[in-house]
């Protein structure tokens, strides 16, 4: 009895996913996905050196993408490898930060567009704040954001903590803004839906800062700056 369509398709996928197959489609599929990973994570690939191919093969042995959007593949690769890479003494200590940085740039550049601001309204303490859909608060142990633009540069990032707001500017490129711990707290609280007043006072408490005039003025300036950058889009 001949195989059903479902059996044939399952068999082809199994062959492609097999760690030790040699079929033409296994070769083509893996080659195509490996190219995409290198395209999305060029610096990570460079700093991993000979380990890159090993890690890509390990990823493809473990799974195939679930997303129909090819650009999601590198996120799956990172998700599967990050914990292991973090504790692997044979890999640079910054490799996870570097991969996260490359993916962050991709995520921010391609995040959904913000709805246009039809009638600008002032922020209110008792209301939440609408943030740009492309804005992210991120923490790194290495100054990956200060690396040269040249993707072929082998310069390693300095071991220096970074607390950043990443956002998309008018040119649709990713920009970053250094944050103080209290500024990051405010943004993270706003991102999870806190009212502005609660976010500002909660951040002060979390950072052990007095809720005085200087702090409040600083918070107001910070939010004004974020508004001018398009990160703050108005009251929620």
């Amino acid at each position: 009895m001949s195989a059903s369509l479902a059996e044939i398709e399952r068999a082809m996928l199994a062959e492609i996913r097999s760690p030790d197959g040699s079929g033409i489609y296994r070769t083509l599929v893996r080659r195509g996905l490996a190219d995409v990973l290198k395209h999305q994570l060029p610096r990570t690939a460079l700093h991993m050196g000979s380990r890159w191919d090993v890690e890509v093969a390990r990823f493809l042995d473990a799974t195939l993408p679930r997303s129909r959007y090819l650009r999601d593949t590198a996120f799956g690769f990172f998700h599967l490898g990050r914990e292991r890479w973090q504790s692997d003494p044979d890999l640079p200590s910054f490799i996870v930060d570097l991969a996260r940085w490359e993916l962050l740039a991709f995520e921010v550049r391609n995040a959904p567009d913000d709805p246009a601001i039809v009638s600008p309204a002032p922020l209110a303490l008792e209301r939440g704040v609408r943030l740009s859909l492309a804005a992210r608060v991120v923490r790194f142990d290495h100054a990956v954001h200060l690396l040269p633009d040249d993707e072929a540069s082998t310069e390693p990032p300095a071991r220096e903590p970074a607390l950043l707001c990443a956002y998309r500017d008018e040119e649709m490129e990713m920009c970053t803004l250094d944050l103080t711990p209290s500024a990051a707290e405010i943004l993270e609280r706003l991102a999870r839906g806190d009212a502005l007043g609660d976010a500002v006072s909660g951040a002060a408490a979390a950072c052990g800062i007095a809720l005085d005039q200087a702090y409040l003025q600083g918070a107001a300036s910070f939010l004004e700056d974020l508004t001018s950058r398009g990160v703050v889009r108005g009251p929620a």
Partner: protein
Amino acid sequence: MHHQSLSGVGLGLRWQILDEVLAALDDPGSLAPVGFFEIAPENYMRRGGYFPAMLARVADRFPILSHGLTMSVGSVDPLDGAYLAELRRFLDRFAIPAHSDHLCFTGTGGFQSHDLLPLPFTREAARHAAARAREVREILGRPFAIENITYYLVPGEREMDEAAFLREVLEQADCGLLLDVNNVLVNSKNHGEYDPISFLSRLPLSRVVSLHVAGHERDLGRLIDTHGAPIADEVYPLVEWVIARTGPLPVVLERDNKIPPLAELLAEARRVREAYDRGISASRVAR
């Protein structure tokens, strides 16, 4: 702009040439003979930022054809309703009146290979793909065409050859054919050196809605449809032969790898246009 009314030569729009295309938008004549662009909607869907914004600029000046990569028409997985709904919104947004994808499956069991995997040439596969093509057309609310792929093996036991399989799917689905003549050539060389014109003669040419041309390379012991090289000389007569029998249609030059500067692609597009014009002349003579 109606898909059916488009004819002449167009270009697959890729990131690598996007800036050059944008720079030429104020002088569209400088992009001659390109009269339209084809895009893969998956590259623009579910994302914001630069690329969709730039596509909108191109679409203001040029008609856009939509050619998908992941419909997986032949897959036994259920059709992805969320994807289809989003695709329809995308096509509506850019006023694209038709859509096409490949006669293949791209994954199963929820996995995506991101490659075009061949279907068995069986009646079951033809019936299944045709039913899904009809369903896709209903959901998208516009014509849906399928493209013949290159295949490097035929899975399962074959009950017919490729031409018969294509014909059966097209007739059962009552849909259009996006005819990739490079794929015809590659398959003819990889599978027994048969005559590509004989193959084309067996297709229902009245169903052809557009043509694809691209380059291939020798690798892994056979010709691979890489879209990474200039169009082979043998492809141009196939364009001419088909156009002579179908009359005016949109012909799309695809290049996805080792993409040269736009000027080089335009020179190649001019060569396609010459073959196209010879085909048009022959079709007039025949009338």
